[in-house]
């Protein structure tokens, strides 16, 4: 692989007395498109945020910025074990699923990228097939099976289907990363005295780290956001995750809609995703392999 060369900024740009009209109109077009995309994606989030700070009475008042700010909704959801326990379940189940998916997918992706074995294309095709399989069609059989096996309403009962859909995603993403790592590095490690396991752990895995982090984020988001399995394969606090628990929120009275609480819960469960992405952004973007070979 050749060293990445950063193109030098065009010196003429700034010095040019009048910006050329094509440059300006392109800038304008890009700005417009980007603004529209940002607005479209951020308005619902801000709206949710606004709802979560409104008092129940002022929710239908159609003011974007709340007239009366309140933390009552947040206090309310953290006051019930329905939400706090669900949050715990969500975090636990998503983290375990992600960890297992990345671990297993790394090994599988490595084999796919590096080894020649019979049936490889079939295996990869099958993985892709699973990832596009409609989840809803699995709900009924899994519901019955899990009850038979005693997995219904347990953490493993959710972790297993999450792995089913997380692994193909992981294998796909990671094998792309592994393919980018020069074969010679592993040979060099072996000649240097490494066992195949040491070569993987000390040389290949660190280089594939950005890929693993990317995969982890994708799988985590997938598990964290799941509603279909969470609502169908759980029945109590024992393993109900937040997206499912939100459906069980009740209002202050029997007739009141729990919109404020739902909004607050939605805001809370968005936070880990934002943190996750912000924290690992640099790792995802960093290309570690530059300089491995000649140049």
């Amino acid at each position, binding site marked *: 692989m050749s060293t990445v060369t950063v193109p030098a900024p065009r010196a003429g740009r700034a010095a040019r007395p009048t910006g050329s009209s094509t440059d300006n109109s392109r800038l304008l077009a890009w700005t417009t498109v980007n603004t529209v995309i940002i607005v479209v994606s951020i308005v619902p989030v801000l709206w949710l945020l606004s709802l979560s700070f409104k008092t129940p009475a002022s929710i239908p008042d159609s003011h974007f910025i709340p007239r009366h700010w309140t933390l009552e909704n947040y206090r309310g959801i953290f006051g019930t074990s329905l939400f706090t326990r669900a949050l715990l379940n969500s975090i636990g189940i998503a983290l375990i699923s992600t960890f297992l998916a990345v671990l297993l997918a790394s090994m599988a992706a490595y084999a796919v990228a590096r080894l020649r074995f019979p049936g490889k294309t079939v295996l990869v095709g099958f993985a892709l097939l699973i990832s596009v399989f409609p989840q809803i069609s699995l709900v009924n059989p899994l519901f019955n099976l899990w009850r038979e096996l005693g997995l219904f309403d347990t953490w493993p009962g959710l972790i297993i289907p999450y792995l089913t859909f997380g692994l193909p995603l992981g294998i796909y993403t990671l094998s792309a990363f592994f393919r980018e790592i020069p074969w010679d*590095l592993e040979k*060099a490690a072996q*000649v240097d005295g490494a066992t195949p396991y040491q070569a993987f752990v000390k040389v290949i895995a660190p*280089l594939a780290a950005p890929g693993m982090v990317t995969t982890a984020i994708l799988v985590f988001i997938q598990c964290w956001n799941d509603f279909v399995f969470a609502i169908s394969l759980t029945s109590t606090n024992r393993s109900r995750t937040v997206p499912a628990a939100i459906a069980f929120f009740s209002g202050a009275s029997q007739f009141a809609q729990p919109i404020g609480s739902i909004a607050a819960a939605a805001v809370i469960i968005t936070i880990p995703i934002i943190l996750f992405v912000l924290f690992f952004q640099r790792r995802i973007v960093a290309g570690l392999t530059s300089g491995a070979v000649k140049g």
Partner: protein
Amino acid sequence: MADIVLDHVTKRFADGQVAVDDVSLDIHDGEFVILVGPSGCGKSTTLNMIAGLEDISEGELRIGGKVVNGLAPKDRDIAMVFQSYALYPHMTVRDNMGFALKLAKLPADQIKTKVDEAARILDLVPYLDRKPANLSGGQRQRVAMGRAIVRDPKAFLMDEPLSNLDAKLRVQTRTEVSRLQNRLGTTMVYVTHDQTEALTLGDRVAVMRSGRVQQFASPEELYDRPKNIFVAGFIGSPAMNFMPVTFEGGRLRTAFGDISPSPAVVSKLAGSADGRSLILGIRPEHFEDAALVTGAEKADGVTFPTTVDVLESLGADKFAYFTFGGEVARHAELEELARDAGAADAAGGGDQVVARLDAASGAREGEKIDLWVDTAKMYIFDPDTGANLAV
């Protein structure tokens, strides 16, 4: 340190391709051996088999008297420099060089001493804390060498270690490699496709073609007594000139006159039909401007007139290109060499002949000149087998 013996080693890949075909080499302890040949001839595969990175399909490989066919690379105690260098991009130069020692569980202070020593030898001290991405091509190459020499292994294997350097640096590093090997005295197997590198570095050179060793001998031997037309055309720069010649009435009829073959050739040709065609090989340096050849020497060769098509003056020598206008010597191996060189003016490329003349020669482009050729240094090849009839 150890000797390396390849005993009828064959490599057959899963797809049926035979990359290395019945190769036997006896590499002595401390020897600097070169594997040279056109690309795709199986040099890297041979080296990888010695390293343990490729399985051996048939035959036996012994390092230090021990059969190692079944041993993993890590148990063979050899160091290798890759064409791509294969530096670990996430480690500093120091960690790259110390990696093998760390795996061998050497104490940290010993690792430091050894890495510092190697860095000093290779002029890498200022770069020890850099990552490979922040090094120049030459520095990366030296780190790759450093990674090998810190270990004090039984043998060094190098796969075209200089091919990614520019021409000037390559020559410089070539002498460094030579000095390094002299100093360490470790057995070294070095792969290259560059015959100059092979001749200048090797104690002995194995010339390979299509997975087979054509000749395994000292550089002088390869140059003076090539076993066949392939070795003759591959070794030497500019490459040997080839032209058709007929054997008639006990004499060789060449484009520049009749000559009497040497006794060795005569005995080989005894009994062959009159008028048999053969291939004549003459190295460019065995021509000379007839005006510069003195009396006694002149009698050992043949003088003939020709017209210089192109003259290249290189300061120390002049290269004169001319043609005899006759037929062209054809041989499958010559065509292979020409393909590898990727140039028409390589061996077997048309009927053009190149002569290397002294700088004092008065040869001029487009003008007539008398050239002299040393008939004692001519080679005669069998056009069917490619064998050199004079050895």
